[in-house]
């Protein structure tokens, strides 16, 4: 954790951006190896959109006890403002002051996962928790890359939610969105690009003339001035509810950028879809962990049992996570109870256990990919630990951090990183992800190679 925070500290804080507030996250670990020219599949180099704060919210007012020099300093300043500031400090103004304080403190941490949500941003998050996505309907992350001295923050698609404009337009996990409505999304300092640096060197060595260099500098400045800020781009992508948006996208392994135009609207995601596969295998896909996912998952399992299913394929691909409670409940339905997760918090480590109930009488395989993140990874890992489940697909995202939302009664919230989750047997996937037991890449445009493989693995066991 310490290392991670240190790494982030060096980075531009993007976490508290409006609209994109629940799209927080920045590349954390593997930027050292990242390179622009690399054509290989991207490592899971971004922290996931925190779909929801996974941990139980804390009601804030109960903690305001005690006193200190620091508190007195703030109190006296607020008092001076109330007594002397030329404009009256109305309730509304003081609310803005309080939000300003919280926002500034969280920004000071330079931890992309710890962020302030104003009421509008919190509403977006609440909506996402209920499966209502706005804008293009994709879960997004900011990926950090470092190329030489150049720090970049790219908006990357983690997963297009099923039924969303993003899914309809064919956006894929790993796509990076580079332009919005024809404008460049400002991802880096345009004066620090290798091109400008090389030209600078070339001018010094008199390989090119100064005029060319000056032109390039001016073009870079123009590009910066005409670009759209990441904050605004995220807001459009995640909060806009009408109109059209045109995007330019870079896809790993493709040279030409992809242009597409898609509507902005709200998408309601059905968290669970299920169908019977041949030979007594039920396929259940969970797109995100929320309350509805729990009840629907339970209903589908009962149905499958009634149909005599002996095998379960649990599809957690592109599942960005969700509520810890929901994840716990889904795991319990399969493992029959016991350890669900190991939680590390400041100064303590404890295991979440649930009372034993009946274990699910089916063989289980779990589909995972790079869009499987947060509590979805936890579920997959714990099922491997405690239900002998095989993991099939590709390596997961690697986000094991827990956030606690502090709810403020004006409707805003402070989201703070307070813990780290490990699988039931103590495997720590933060920063590395879970490796599948059977690695299967998804190449084909039609057909689902990963699912086919999973069925093949499951069949002999039945």
């Amino acid at each position: 954790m310490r290392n991670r925070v240190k790494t982030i500290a060096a980075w531009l804080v993007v976490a508290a951006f409006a609209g994109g507030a629940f799209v927080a996250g920045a590349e954390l670990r593997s930027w050292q190896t990242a390179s622009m020219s690399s054509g290989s599949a991207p490592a899971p180099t971004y922290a996931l959109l925190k779909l929801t704060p996974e941990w139980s919210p804390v009601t804030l007012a109960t903690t305001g006890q005690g006193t200190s020099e620091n508190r007195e300093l703030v109190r006296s300043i607020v008092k001076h403002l109330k007594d002397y500031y030329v404009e009256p400090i109305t309730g509304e103004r003081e609310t803005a002051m309080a939000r300003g304080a919280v926002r500034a403190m969280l920004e000071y941490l330079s931890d992309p996962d710890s962020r302030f949500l104003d009421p509008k941003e919190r509403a977006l998050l609440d909506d996402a928790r209920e499966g209502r996505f706005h804008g293009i309907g994709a879960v997004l992350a900011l990926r950090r890359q470092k190329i030489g001295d150049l720090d970049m923050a790219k908006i990357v698609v983690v997963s297009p939610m099923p039924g969303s404009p993003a899914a309809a337009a064919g956006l894929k996990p790993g796509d990076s969105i580079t332009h919005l409505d024809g404008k460049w999304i400002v991802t880096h300092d345009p004066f620090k690009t290798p091109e400008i640096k090389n030209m600078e060197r070339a001018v010094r060595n008199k390989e090119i003339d100064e005029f060319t260099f000056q032109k390039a500098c001016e073009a870079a400045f123009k590009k910066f001035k005409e670009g759209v800020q990441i904050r605004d781009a995220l807001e459009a992508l995640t909060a806009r509810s009408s109109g059209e948006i045109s995007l330019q996208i870079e896809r790993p392994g493709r040279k030409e950028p992809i242009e597409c135009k898609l509507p902005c609207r709200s998408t309601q995601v059905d968290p669970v879809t299920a169908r019977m596969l041949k030979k007594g295998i039920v396929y259940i896909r969970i797109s995100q962990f929320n309350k509805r996912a729990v009840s629907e998952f339970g209903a589908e399992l009962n149905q499958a049992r009634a149909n005599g299913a002996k095998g379960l394929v649990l599809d957690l691909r592109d599942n960005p996570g969700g509520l810890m409670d929901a994840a716990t409940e889904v795991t319990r339905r399969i493992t029959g109870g016991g350890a669900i997760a190991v939680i590390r918090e400041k100064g303590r480590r404890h295991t979440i256990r649930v009372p034993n109930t009946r274990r699910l009488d089916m063989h289980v395989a779990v589909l995972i990919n790079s869009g499987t993140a947060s509590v979805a990874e936890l579920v997959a890992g714990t099922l491997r630990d405690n239900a002998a489940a095989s993991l099939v697909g590709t390596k997961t995202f690697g986000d094991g951090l827990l956030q606690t939302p502090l709810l403020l009664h004006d409707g805003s919230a402070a989201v703070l990183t307070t813990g780290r989750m490990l699988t039931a047997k103590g495997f720590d996937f933060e920063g590395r992800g879970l490796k599948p037991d059977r690695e299967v890449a998804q190449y084909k445009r039609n057909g689902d190679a990963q699912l086919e493989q999973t069925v093949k693995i499951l069949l002999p066991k039945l």
Partner: protein
Amino acid sequence: MKGLERTDMKPRSRQFLIAALVISSFLCGFTYRDIGAGHGVLAALQLLPGRVAAAITANLASDDAELKATETYWSVFTYLDANYLGQKPDSKQLTYAAIRGILASLGDRYTRFLDPTEYTQIQEENRGNFEGIGAVLEAKDGRIIVKNPMANTPAERAGLRAGDIILKVDNDMIQGLDITEVAKRIRGHRGTKVKLAIKREGVPKPLEFEIERAVIPFEIVTWKMEDDASKIGYIRLGQFNEKSDEKMDDALTQLERLGMRGLVLDLRENPGGLLDVAVDIGSRFTRGDIVIVQDKGGKRTTFSAEPSKYHDPACPLAVLIDQNSASASEIVAGAIRDHKAGTLVGVDTFGKGLVQTIFNLEGGAAVSVTTMKYFTPSGQDVSREKIHPDVVVELTEQDLKSKKDVQLERAVQILRERLGATQVGTRNEKRDST
């Protein structure tokens, strides 16, 4: 976040000149010192446990949609301190961040927190001690350029020139940064060094400078006999600080000895300073009211000229103003105009009709709070309407390059005509000044 400082406050078309060495004073505008000093600032810091507890209770009980600033800060602070999984933040710095967040939410750039280091620096400046490199900066078309290096400063010795475009400060690109932020980065204590990368017209490669900061010999008041034949004197007032009054006296006495018959008072680029000093300086040139201030409750207080300070015999006066004549400069210019005690020459002023009070806090920090508005004696709200010159004279690009001060020339010419038209030694300050 750093981004907080990257606000474009002014239209690009307007030149925004700031002397790197007086930047902090500019930021705090001018300070309302006399009234308010007795407000028992330190007493207010003492803890009132009963009230604090009540405040928390009130916060707990409140079910409306409003937040209390201190309680909210403290709740999040304590929770964060106990539970944040990352590296424990420094609690002082975390609190400073919260304070800056609180003040930023007001949207008033003059209401700001001064940590102990910044506050010490401002106090030094109000005493007339500056440390830096001695370059005057200007924002133009989105670039920060050196307007001029001041004489006998590290900037001049290092070879900075007027018109140099600043590209980097200490290896950081400054593109998009506010001029005040750039100035802040360039400034620093004597003996320390700053690296600048400069783009100079006609020079292809960016130039690199490493300049050691020093104490800047900043003359609050400079004077000369501008026109020896007509005996027209010139006094430039750089700032309204604790030394201004005394230095102004010296300058007037010296010019008097040389037989001054007319005076040009230069308030260009003067970012203001202390309010009582503005009243003192204004008292030299006019009688009657100098400024009217209005506090939070709407109560108005009028400051009148100190009759004993009036410079008698009066001689024809012209006052030079420009877009960076701010706050205290605008008070003096406004009073002179309202009382028809002189002719204003130049361009519209900055337009800052707000007064700040600096409150000392425990631990050496301070907070500068906008506490009042002010009006000229005729009731003009300077925040809404700038001080307009009686005679508009703009400095063109060409003038700047050729170092031709057409504003000063015009002021001298006006005074010459006035002296020619009236008898030498006229002492009627109510002379018409159109």
